[in-house]
């Protein structure tokens, strides 16, 4: 059993590796290849390189081999041996102290900053490995980068994501303040909390009236009509029990309060809507909204 944290500490302790020299000095042909591929028509890169190219100059290349003291390489090897064989880059934070001139020859040094894990991720269980690199022209630091990769064990034959089923909806948490609302839905009533003291209507429900401070809420049964005050179309991520995309609308009820709910159909601001109740199971009925004929 490999003690990953101990190995990481051992590598981190060594600090920066020896400077590794770029294959070529900063040069126009490579700059032009990069501009052409990225599609960048910036006219300023005739004597200096695009800052975002900094890492390109010191890439290991087609047959590149990591040097023995390269901390990222050493850490990758340990994680490979521990079964975390796949890698994906997750963060790159680059700071450019100045623009690099054609003809300057860069070198790079790297140290291991941090190794954290094991973490469960969408790709599988893995470790986040963070390194810090500095690029140099002679003994002048010209750019820096914090770079993080996820080194992970690929999930065993990624099971196809099961289609969310209608019974798996996220259930509301029903409590003493909200019980009356959900009871109402089961009976086909859309209930709005009304203060037992001053009569103020409010939604979402709460224990105390924000206006008069009374703690004896009652309710009013809404007519179930209103207009779309605002809405979002939810595309991502998947939500249990829902097919994306779906619409969540903020409905301004004719009684004056606003209420969130799913809206069936093409949304538009100001559209008239009416409530519909959908029975999920014996304990739960959900209110949602659909366009109404009345204007």
């Amino acid at each position, binding site marked *: 059993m490999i003690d990953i944290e101990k190995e990481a500490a051992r590598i981190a302790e060594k600090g920066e590796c020896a400077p590794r020299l770029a294959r070529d000095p900063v040069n126009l042909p*490579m700059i032009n*290849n*990069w501009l*052409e*591929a*990225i*599609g*960048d028509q*910036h*006219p*300023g890169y005739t004597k200096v390189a*695009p*800052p*975002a*190219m900094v*890492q*390109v100059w010191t*890439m290991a*290349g*087609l047959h*590149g081999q990591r040097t023995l003291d390269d901390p990222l390489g050493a850490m990758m090897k340990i994680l490979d041996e521990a079964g975390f064989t*796949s890698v*994906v*880059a*997750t*963060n*790159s*934070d*680059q*700071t*450019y102290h100045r*623009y690099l001139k054609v003809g300057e020859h860069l070198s790079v040094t790297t140290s291991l900053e941090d190794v954290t894990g094991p973490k469960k991720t969408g790709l599988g269980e893995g470790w986040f490995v963070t390194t810090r690199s500095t690029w140099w022209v002679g003994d002048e630091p010209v750019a820096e980068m914090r770079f993080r990769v996820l080194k992970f064990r*690929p999930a065993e034959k*990624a099971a196809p994501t099961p289609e969310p089923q209608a019974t798996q909806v996220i259930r509301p948490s029903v409590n003493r303040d909200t019980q009356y609302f959900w009871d109402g839905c089961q009976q086909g009533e859309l209930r709005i909390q009304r203060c037992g003291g001053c009569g103020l209507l409010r939604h979402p429900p709460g224990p105390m009236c924000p206006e008069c401070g009374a703690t004896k809420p009652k309710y009013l049964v809404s007519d179930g009509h209103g207009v779309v005050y605002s809405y979002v179309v939810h595309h*991502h*991520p998947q939500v249990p029990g829902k097919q994306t995309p779906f619409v969540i609308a903020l409905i301004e009820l004719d009684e004056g309060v606003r209420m969130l709910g799913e809206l069936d159909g093409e949304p538009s601001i100001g559209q008239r809507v009416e409530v519909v109740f959908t029975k999920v199971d014996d304990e739960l009925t959900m209110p949602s909204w659909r366009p109404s004929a009345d204007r």
Partner: protein
Amino acid sequence: MRTGDSLPEWHVEATPTFVISTALATRDFQDVHHDRDLAIQRGSKDIFINILTTTGLVQRYVTDWAGPEALVRQVNIRLGAPCYAYDTLKFFGQVIEKDDQDLTIEVVGRTDHGDHVTGIVKIEVPA
């Protein structure tokens, strides 16, 4: 240029040619960026854009908007969903901070699978 200003939306068609030519132009020869068979074997849907290219695209998005006089000081990015061949990568951006000549721009690049990249770019503009 003021805090709150939005950058115009920009779309990049990530054709296989684009994915491969940018990977090679950034000297990244990892097979998942140019060999579809191997990419699929490794559990990907297709070949996908490498991180050095994403950094380059984020820089280009900001300098296309800010103009060639702007100096790029920092590009910090976090990757989410991979940008596969045949995806359309849509960029959105907004100025979130302005201090004299120093601007911080927040950038998001999105595909149909979700956010491919979120990040900030710091630039210095002429007085």
